[in-house]
């Protein structure tokens, strides 16, 4: 067995496989299929200061090798999370990480501060890249000024590991990554979904209730991989790679491109046990190539 452990800031992961927010519930939904403690980190559903009903149905469209969603950050708010969800997940022996979103820097900071009080939540992932909400979300992640403003506000309010999730819907993602690094992020994760659209030609209407949505799944993987590679070269902080990872080979590609860890998202819908299979597959690759530790492959893409 190779050493699969990696570090993201102060966060120690037993293996580099995490779950992407919004695709794995609070982990509990998958407890029948996998031993949650075999996953390096579980990033739970996006949480906001106030409850959100999300967008109307339909919220999903299947597309070639992927899917669009426009859930719109449906969640019961941070108070509900702290009172009702946290007690159910706090004893799961892995890194339980909360994805935090908001509509203004103050909301992000207050929500992060509340999560910061929870002993067994060692990190947050800041979502400045949700394409499905009108206010906030991606609006902050598409300019360096917006990204900096949110990250600075949260950094003041939150002392533990701060991962910032970046939007691919930008001209130069490396520039955004550098700005959040300068604003105090401990790590960046990328990519969030790519904005897309689907049309029902019989009804001559958009399939999704708000017309557009975020594309995920293997369809986005080459774009995600390229962006992870660019960002890993641009920043000193760890990079977490995600976007269409379906198996260990995909995960290893991201790590060779410079990701210290990966997140698995949409693949959980196809195979609810995929996370542990990816971790096992990374181990098999390391053993096959004679690496003692997964850290030996991070960013080791041959020029």
């Amino acid at each position, binding site marked *: 067995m190779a050493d699969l452990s990696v570090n993201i800031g102060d966060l120690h992961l037993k293996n580099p496989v995490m779950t992407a927010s919004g695709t794995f519930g609070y982990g509990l939904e*998958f407890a029948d299929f996998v031993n949650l403690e075999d996953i390096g980190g579980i990033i739970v559903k996006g949480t906001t200061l106030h409850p959100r009903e*999300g967008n109307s*149905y339909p919220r999903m469209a299947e597309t*070639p090798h992927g899917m669009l*969603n426009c*859930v719109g950050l*449906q969640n019961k708010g941070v108070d509900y999370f702290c009172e009702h969800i946290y007690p159910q997940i706090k004893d799961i022996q892995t890194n339980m990480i909360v994805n935090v979103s908001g509509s203004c820097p103050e909301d992000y900071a207050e929500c992060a501060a509340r999560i910061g009080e929870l002993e067994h939540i060692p990190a947050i992932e800041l979502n400045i890249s949700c394409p499905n909400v009108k206010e906030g979300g991606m609006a902050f992640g598409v300019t360096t000024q917006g990204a900096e403003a949110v990250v600075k506000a949260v950094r003041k309010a939150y002392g533990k590991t701060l991962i910032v999730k970046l939007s691919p819907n930008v001209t130069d993602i490396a520039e955004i990554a550098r700005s959040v690094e300068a604003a105090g992020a401990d790590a960046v994760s990328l990519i969030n979904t790519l904005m897309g659209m689907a049309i029902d030609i019989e009804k001559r209407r958009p399939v999704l209730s708000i017309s557009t949505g975020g594309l995920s799944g293997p369809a986005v993987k080459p774009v995600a991989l390229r962006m992870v590679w660019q960002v890993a070269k641009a920043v000193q902080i760890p990079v977490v790679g995600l976007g269409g990872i379906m198996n260990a080979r995909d995960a290893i590609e991201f790590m060779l491109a410079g990701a210290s860890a990966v997140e698995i998202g949409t693949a959980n*819908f*196809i195979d609810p046990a995929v996370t542990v299979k990816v971790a096992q597959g990374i181990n098999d690759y390391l053993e096959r190539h004679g690496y003692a530790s997964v850290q030996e492959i991070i960013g080791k893409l041959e020029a």
Partner: protein
Amino acid sequence: MKKFILDLTVSASEHLRKGYVLLKLTDSRPLPPMLPGQFAELKVEGSETTFLRRPISINYVDEEKNEVWFLIHEVGDGTRKLGELSEGGKLNVVMPLGNGFTMPETPDERVLLVGGGVGTAPLLYMGKKMAEAGCRPTFLLGGRSTADLLQLEMFRALGDVYVTTEDGSMGEKGFVTQHSLLSQEHFDRIATCGPKPMMMAVARYARAAGSSCEVSLENMMACGLGACLCCVEKTVEGHVCVCKEGPVFNINKLLWQI
């Protein structure tokens, strides 16, 4: 109920009518307990345009043969690929998912099960479980034409069967809610599955008649586990996942204008 990822074996694939395939699946180990109204997520292999699993309701469970049945209506490439499976083939299934229909509280309750098209599928298993509990359900089954009415012999073995077709080729002509049975008898409990306009009409009838009524929704799903929040229905409790809180809902929980 504990959920499983199972690699099941096709014990039979029966092309009942054009566009409808009955898949009978088995396993070397005993299948998990399943409730009428629950569903499974079936993995589709070899389809260029299909990425997600297909949620399909549990049609019937044959405990003696250790079989679970799925009635597939071939409407797209994914369901067509499922229909191409043949005996001995493998199918990866996540199940059982969601909540089932409420069983009658006493054997003498008058229960009507209303199905439209492929929506009749879960009512067969419901009828079986009711029969086991000593109840005799009444089935009201509708289709566009005779060709859309399936498994009638099995339904007849479990209860009284009434039929409507839109073209009048079998039973009474028209929609299920126009059947003369509904003006002649009172039912304590109604369960329905089928196209949404049909279920809304059934719900309207049930409310007017003072019958308890459950409907089985089939909002577009991705995960089937309550994780992605895509298949939501607006209810008195806000948006809830059809896959996890449903697919069976009491009509009093929904915000349907009926």
